[in-house]
């Protein structure tokens, strides 16, 4: 027998449910087209990072001038790394290193930052997983689960990480840091996700040196891949087998 009150109740609730589903599906289908107008170029923040790309840097040391620290200043500004307290405690996410061969006298100057290794030792040793590598090759610290043990700093052959040893003031919204946690070059991940270059690259370009090239190492048509295919390049401490994402030319 049909038409009992119970059956009618069931029917209405089922109808309501189906209606909601249909509405949701319609909204989900239409919404991306309406909301994500920049999908053609940008890497949508709502989507997970993909390993279809591997972000990398190429440093042409022949174009990098001794004494120029435009990249360093830009990084300090971008990430709010103001200089305060004892010099040995200050954070340096990128630094200029002067190298000289004592046997031949040959000198060169180059910026050194997190090398964004394919197999980063800092990620291997981190007990909580705070130190992690994004699918697109960017190595960074989740400051929310970093306990400040500094084991990553012990493990990094490039001395790329700095510990936040002081109270922080005037933080930068795009790159928040945390007292008692470890930080380091994150390849300006907030800019990269907006399809922009890291701050150091833009600063070097603005100064006219154009010693830094940023791009996708997996895209054979990217400028960085073309240069890497054309010229002899080196990774710092290649012998360690970590496969850094930062390449150097002229060293």
């Amino acid at each position, binding site marked *: 027998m049909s038409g009992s009150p119970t059956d009618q109740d069931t029917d209405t609730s089922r109808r309501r449910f189906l209606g909601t589903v249909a509405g949701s599906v319609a909204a989900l289908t239409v919404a991306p087209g309406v909301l994500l107008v920049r999908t053609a170029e940008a890497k949508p923040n709502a989507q997970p990072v993909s390993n279809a790309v591997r972000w990398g840097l190429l440093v042409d040391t022949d174009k990098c001038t001794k004494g120029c620290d435009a990249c360093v200043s830009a990084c300090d500004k971008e990430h709010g790394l103001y200089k305060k307290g004892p010099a040995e405690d200050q954070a340096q996410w990128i630094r200029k290193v002067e190298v000289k061969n004592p046997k031949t006298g040959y000198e060169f100057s180059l910026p050194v930052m997190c090398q964004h290794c394919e197999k980063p030792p800092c990620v291997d040793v*981190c007990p909580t997983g705070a130190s992690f590598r994004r699918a697109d090759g960017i190595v960074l610290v989740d400051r929310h689960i970093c*306990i400040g043990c500094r084991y990553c700093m*012990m493990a990094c052959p490039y001395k790329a990480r700095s510990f936040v040893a002081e109270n922080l003031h005037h933080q930068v919204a795009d790159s928040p840091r945390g007292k008692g946690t470890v930080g380091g070059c994150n390849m300006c991940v907030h800019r990269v996700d907006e399809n922009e270059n890291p701050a150091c690259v833009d600063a070097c370009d603005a100064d006219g040196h154009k010693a830094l090239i940023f791009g996708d190492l997996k895209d054979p048509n990217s400028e960085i891949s073309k240069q890497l295919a054309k010229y002899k390049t080196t990774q710092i401490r290649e012998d360690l087998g970590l496969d850094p994402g930062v390449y150097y030319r002229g060293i």
Partner: protein
Amino acid sequence: MKPKIHYREIEGHSAAYWIMVAVFGALVVAGLLSSYYMEHNGHWVTGMTNQVVWGMPHVFAVFLIVAASGALNVASIGSVFGKTAYKPLAPLSGLLAVSLLAGGLMVLVLDLGRPDRLIIAMTHYNFKSIFAWNIFLYTGFMAVVAVYLWMLMERRMKRFTRPAGMVAFVWRIILTTGTGSIFGFLIAREAYDFALLAPMFVIMSFSFGLAIFLLVLMAAYRWSGRPLGDGVVMRLKNLLGVFIAAVLYFVLVYHITKLYMTAHHGIERFILLDGGIYTALFWGVQIVLGSLVPLALLYHPRLGKSRTVVGTAAVLVIIGGLAQVYVLIIGGQAYPLQLFPGMEVSSSFYDGIVNSYTPSFPEIVLGVSGMALAMAIVSIGIKVLRFLPESLEDSLVDPHHPLEVLASDDAAPEPAES
């Protein structure tokens, strides 16, 4: 048949006992305050920097953790290897092991940048990290030794002593291997990156742990007025001598191997020849004061029989051990990273130069407070539970003790501290 061993709590009513406990307590409070001071202001108030990221707290923490596993050896020799003479010492051995580990872990945790996030360390694991493994190994060690102590001290559980002791023994070997691997796995720094560090830490634990055990044993029996046989002390001091020699052997192999590899001549020159404080600590404290002098004292035909000399040797082993860990941890970081091997490098970030480190007062206090916590736990432990035999006379302990000596040795069990 030999008389039975009776375990009893120490009385611990004397003023001296309470003063001792109060001093340990005050040091623990001072350590907590130091930690608060460092966390509140940030680590820039310590001697640790972005160049030397692990400092004095880590020296103490690693020393204590290594010594903790070593302190369990005495119990293992009894339960696992069946040496009867060591069995009465087993409960104290287990208690000391757990206490030293608690002290070491306290220092380690309180030096974290975010000690308040301990719960994160307990809930987020990266199983490729030896540090994450160690969290399990350390907490597991506490549990395993606690069960072992229960089997040892509960008459009805006696038959499980051997398996429990076996598990604890295997666990402690793995634990110290893990602690050594914290450094052994680091490819970045030349002083580390060496598989030998893991077994070297195991052998260091034998030596450091036994030195502390000997001191605690002699102090506890002397201060509580209980008899402690010369045979017991002689047995332990001879074993300590063997362990000191074994550590020396590992140190020798470590440096000979690194010296053989041309690429490591820089770090070897730094530690052995021109590293300033590190060279002085290595030769002066670790090798001479902490190894050769105690060896000579312990094996000297006349001096080696004096308990004062044995105690002095044990203190020297502890000082030498701290120096060894200091040279390894701080010296290994002071020597610059080799970004471009063979090149001269310089930067604003102290590349290419020897990094300086001066331990700050709060760091030292925090480190010492770890030792104080361990000693506080032992002091209170032996007062509330039956860890110590009423007597450790040779006639009671030594299975080979000749009966005629027993008769003529004025060895009738006398009630201690009645």
